[in-house]
């Protein structure tokens, strides 16, 4: 008998937070409209009734202030989950995340850890225009001292929060808004790690290396490629910092060709880091140059056809793969 069940990404995130809030009185949720409104994306619907206003704290529109307050609360013995509505607004809090949360442990000679979880929606694809469509995980992954998670599956949405809260250091979780309504099977497992990449589709001809909102696109591309006789392996990075270099190398060593897909802009984006790791650690495994599919070098436009053209799409991934076999 299978104990797996179907649920949406949204329900998975909600269950994860509910579980944490029930299990540990030190855990509390803080952010814009997490309480009475029920969460911008309904992640925390009903939480105010169950846990009360002390632990489900609606904040003013003060990203710098309430993220910094979360850092202080973590230092003071609590286990805050700070919800920043979107990565776009996290730019207002960047100073506290980068200059305080990430640096405190090292700068204090190991005296103070910051056990803080920051969650935020990321990504484009919903015609929200340039200021609401950023994909800046790569910036955060640049910073030593924080960990960066990108749950792209129902099981990761459900289970990554627990180890993130157990982690003594700051963890930033990027939830791609294009995934929230995705429904899928949640296997009957106790939990997941937050250290390794995972193969989501086994293949042998080309490694599609991706994470977050681009995972379903890579999987769709893999299905198309299969009809043409190319078996793609799809590697979900899951954790951008620390990056699972061994997992990347294993996929490249198996397939000898690789395409890296992410929604960052190409210049200085996260795909560039993955490609560099391949050059450093798996160059002699390659039968073709590594390719990448990223966002076009343009602010994400509003009009639907332009937005679609600006973002990675399964067709672009298929074309990039075929280019490696040309």
């Amino acid at each position, binding site marked *: 008998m299978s104990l797996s069940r179907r649920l949406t990404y949204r329900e998975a995130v909600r269950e994860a937070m509910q579980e944490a809030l029930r299990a540990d009185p030190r855990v*509390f949720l803080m952010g814009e409209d997490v309480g009475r409104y029920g969460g911008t994306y309904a992640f925390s619907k009903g939480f105010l009734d169950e846990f009360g206003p*002390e632990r489900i*704290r609606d*904040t*003013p529109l*003060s990203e*710098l*202030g*309430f*993220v*910094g*307050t*979360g*850092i*202080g*609360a*973590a*230092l*003071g*013995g*609590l286990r*805050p989950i700070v919800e920043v509505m979107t990565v776009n607004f996290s730019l207002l809090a960047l*100073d*506290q995340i980068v*200059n*305080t949360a990430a640096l*405190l*442990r*090292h*700068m*204090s*000679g*190991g*005296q*103070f*850890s910051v056990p803080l979880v920051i969650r935020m929606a990321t990504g484009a694809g919903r015609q929200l225009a340039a200021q609401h469509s950023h994909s800046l995980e790569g910036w955060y992954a640049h910073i*030593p*001292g924080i*960990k960066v998670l990108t749950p792209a599956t129902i099981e990761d949405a459900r289970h990554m929060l627990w180890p993130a809260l157990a982690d*003594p*250091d700051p963890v930033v979780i990027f939830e791609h808004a294009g995934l929230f309504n995705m429904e899928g099977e949640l296997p009957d497992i106790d939990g997941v790690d937050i250290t390794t990449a995972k193969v989501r589709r086994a293949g042998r001809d080309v490694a599609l290396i991706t994470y977050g909102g681009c995972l379903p696109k890579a999987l769709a591309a893999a299905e198309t490629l299969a009809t043409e006789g190319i078996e793609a392996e799809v590697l979900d990075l899951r954790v951008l910092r620390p990056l699972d270099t061994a997992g990347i190398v294993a996929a490249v060593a198996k397939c000898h060709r690789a395409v890296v897909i992410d929604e960052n802009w190409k210049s200085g984006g996260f795909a560039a880091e993955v490609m560099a790791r391949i050059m450093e650690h798996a160059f002699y495994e390659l039968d073709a140059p590594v390719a990448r599919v990223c966002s076009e070098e343009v602010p994400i436009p509003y009009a639907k056809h332009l937005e679609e053209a600006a973002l990675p799409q399964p067709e672009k991934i298929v074309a990039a793969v075929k280019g490696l076999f040309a």
Partner: protein
Amino acid sequence: MAIEHRPPPPPSGPVPWDKDFALKMLADMLRIRRMEEKCAEAYGEGKIRGFLHLYIGEEAVAVGALAALRPEDNVVATYREHGHALVRGLSMNAIMAEMYGKQEGCCRGRGGSMHLFDAATRLYGGNAIVGGGLPLATGLALAAKMQREERVTACFFGDGAVAEGAFHEAMNLAALWKLPVLFCCENNLYGMGTAIERAEAQTDLVAKAAAYGMPALRCDGMDIVAVHDTTLAALAQIHETGGPVFVEYQTYRFRAHSMFDAELYRDKDEVEAWKTRGPIHTFTARLKAEGKLTEDEFLALDAAAQREVEAAVAFAEAGTWEPVETMLGDVYTS
């Protein structure tokens, strides 16, 4: 409010303290002064590098305010925090070794002058981003409140921080959520080289704080008695209401902003006028006038401070460098 750059008249009136406490306050101001004079010297010799921001002239604020706190309270400070760290209880040895970059320093030489931390005395830095400590202090206070701990978080910052968004966001949150934060604004009239009236449309900082619906007090930060009394009053209010209080300490920095500052932005006359109001010698004069201090006692306190400094320098000189092999440690906890 027109800004007066000239100092107010020197403090006068009786010192309402017993001799032991008065001498302890004087001794702590002397310890900071002598330590920092030595830091400037060591900087000249290349022993201390990076940025070095001296607190000389402002000692009455840290000494008077911190003496009002309890060990269980939290302290958040700025990059001009040598004095706060010292009177909070960090050893001068650990501070000096940190500035020398030695692993015997309080942060193993990873923080330096601007980042003195000490878990034992609940000193949460040493923050070199202007205004950066205010949200942190607000969060520490939130943790105390949610865990039903009787703990006040004292957050020091300068007048420059008042123009930062972090100031306004933290003040609003602390007032909105009634958090036990003591906001300690050390107004020395300059944010680096910019005079407050060139940076603030509203230079009345007490009015600004009061706009957030929190009690706001002002005192002569060059008068340690006023500093201590005002801080005690603020703390009493915090303990009574559970909410935050803002205190503006009007003070003055005698030295340059940092060791790289040619001081082109203020008149020498202004600096000299404030020096006549120096917190150490005016307090010394009052104690002597009241018969609570003799010249011999003063010299003994000063000599003790000097000995402590010499010992701290020797400790720092004898300190060792962290091996490069362990550099990557403590980026993460595990």
